[in-house]
């Protein structure tokens, strides 16, 4: 059982969960994730570790309430427990001094970006951050990331904040300078669009892939993705991959494998709690 220390809203529908696990906290590195299960009847879901607090032996996980499980997670309060928490999972990112790095975060992907930005900064890189979201109120960790960045940009789809448009619109301009690495985390279509820009320019580009996982330990192949002519398991071979060879279209299909079942689950859940987000937190 894993104790919840904090579970609070950062932006509408986006929450930060701090959960206690001294063993995982000791080992986790940027880019790694955990798999959690709320209770006996729950499903296992992977979530990236956004930060850690060694002094409290705890981790931060930032998640968006989209499906039944994340909605249910959002209803848990301080002092309650998660039944299962496994990690750290996946390969850590390769942190080194590359030079100038563009870090792109879309939506809740910003959470995954945060530990990278900290680590890359510490390794002596020049940090250019681009954060994108649908609308102004959906940003979080904005100040923290801005403080770590040498250049900092915001885009919104609706123009309510920062530049109107997509992160890729900005990326185009920024790649006129010499860029040593691009790391993009966000929706698959966004990462694919980033690759579209950086590939012809031959800029080394990494993406962190969110796939459907089950065990998260390399035992099932639920998370498989085609990279070049090889099939990889994102949970153990990733979640970071070099973007140029990733078959995004296949993965976009694969991520809809259970959309019918997910909708059924969510509907039942919504009916039960009157279609409202949990007011507790």
């Amino acid at each position: 059982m894993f104790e919840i220390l904090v579970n609070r809203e950062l932006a509408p529908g986006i929450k930060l969960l701090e959960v206690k696990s001294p063993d995982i906290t000791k080992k986790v590195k940027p880019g790694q994730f955990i798999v959690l299960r709320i209770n006996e009847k729950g499903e296992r879901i992977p979530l990236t570790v956004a930060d850690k607090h060694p002094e409290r032996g705890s981790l931060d996980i930032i998640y968006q309430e989209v499906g039944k499980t994340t909605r249910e997670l959002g209803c848990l309060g301080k002092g309650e427990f998660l039944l299962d928490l496994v990690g750290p999972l996946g390969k850590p990112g390769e942190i080194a001094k590359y030079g100038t790095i563009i870090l792109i975060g879309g939506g809740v992907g910003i959470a995954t970006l945060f530990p990278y930005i900290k680590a890359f900064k510490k390794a002596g890189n020049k940090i250019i951050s681009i954060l994108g979201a649908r609308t102004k109120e959906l940003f979080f960790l904005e100040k923290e990331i801005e403080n770590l960045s040498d250049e900092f940009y915001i885009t919104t789809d609706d123009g309510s904040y920062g530049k109107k448009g997509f992160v890729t619109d900005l990326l185009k301009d920024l790649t006129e300078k010499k860029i040593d690495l691009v790391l993009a985390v966000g929706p698959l279509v966004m990462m694919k669009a980033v690759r579209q820009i950086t590939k012809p320019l031959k800029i080394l580009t990494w993406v962190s892939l969110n796939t459907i996982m089950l065990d998260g330990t390399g035992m099932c192949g639920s998370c498989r993705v085609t990279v070049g002519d090889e099939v990889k398991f994102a949970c153990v071979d990733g979640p970071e991959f070099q973007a140029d060879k990733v078959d995004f279209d296949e993965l976009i299909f694969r991520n809809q494998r259970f959309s019918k079942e997910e909708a059924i689950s969510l509907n039942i859940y919504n009916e039960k709690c009157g279609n409202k987000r949990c007011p507790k937190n």
Partner: protein
Amino acid sequence: MSKELVRKSMPQRKAKERIGDFQEVNLGYTEEQAILEAKRCLQCKKPLCIKGCPVEIDIPKMIEYIAKGDFIGAIKNAKEKNALPAICGRVCPQETQCEKLCILKHKGQPVAIGNLERFIADWEASHTTNSKEYNNKEQSEPNRGAKGIKIAVIGSGPAGLTCAADLARMGYEVTIFESLSEPGGVLRYGIPPFRLSRGVVDREIEYIKNLGVDIKVNMLIGQIKSLNNLFAEDYKSIFIGTGAGLPRFMNIPGENLNNVYSANEFLTRINLMKAFKFPEYDTPIACGKKVAAIGAGNVAIDSARCALRLGAQEVSIIYRRSEQEMPARDEEILHAKEEGVKLFLLTLPVEYYSDEKGCVKKARCIKMELGEPDGSGRRRPIPIENSDFEMDIDTVVVAIGQSPNPLLLHSTPELKVAKYGNLVVDEESLETGIKGVFAGGDIISGAATVIEAMGAGKRAASSIDNFLAKK
């Protein structure tokens, strides 16, 4: 003693009824049936059956007790060699082990050793665990943790459980580290409850806990702790029983389409996560109406029979050799046929086709014929030219084998790994390249059997005891 040649058949539920749920197919002998079956045993002077048993249960002795109606005597006798008799009685391939060598096989039918083993274990559970009699006695065994020496066991499949049980009985303080949320390995996530009820698995694991073994779940060793971390935490020796959990694929076009699963994913969703109870349980599974399981081992048959129970209308096994070469247990093949699973033999899928939503809708297969025997002694399947045909299917479960679990091995470069990913150990002692680290089960052999994994766990336990005695 009666020399009756016909063995008592296992009472079982009707096929129509049993495919409607995930409850056990076999019902087990009654006391009368067990005694009658036991009386068929000739009590051979030189019993061959024992030689066929990888953990060398004193089978004639066990059967003698049953014939006399002393079921407690029988179970104690079996448990001296086998910590998990209720499981082995259900899943061991007896027809290639003890029952294959039974002298009566040549005269008619061998003694139903597996059925008897299952009977005494179940009898014990229903007669003694209720009163806690047996467990309490074990619990109060004087040498529990007496040696004050800590040992770490990685993986809680049959290999790890057996090794832990033996070490605990010797007086060691044993901790099992398991990465999944529940202990049992394949017994938990792989073998479906209609073959091995979860009550049985729980019961056997409870027994091992009562020996004083501590089981820590959610611990993926290699990631959360390294072997060096474990030594630093004062574990004096380590056993690796991490199994063969890496699913193999055929690498043919269309294999990543939706509704194409590895057997591990399909079975884990169902058996560990209880997706068959969706939406009461949250884990989903999408299973269509026309399902093909590729392969012919226990894993393929289990997948096919699970699909039936999820409501599939047409379930086929596609296998590139003939029925004779099917590696699954005889009973499973028989049960699958009774339940309506079709066998497409001498057939190999070569490509899957997609519908507009990225979901598999068709397989293209070719027909095979058998040529000369290959390295495994089985006749090699050879494709027949221009024999392509198409099959409508909407779900595929790839069950062509699993390789040893690479995660811990990759994160521990000192461990030597052979060509097919198997962890290399000393054949006698089962010690790995690292001093004090031993291994056994599917991680060293590749996917094999429950009882072989248990046998290895036992051997490793005695090697660990020797190793620590010498220190």
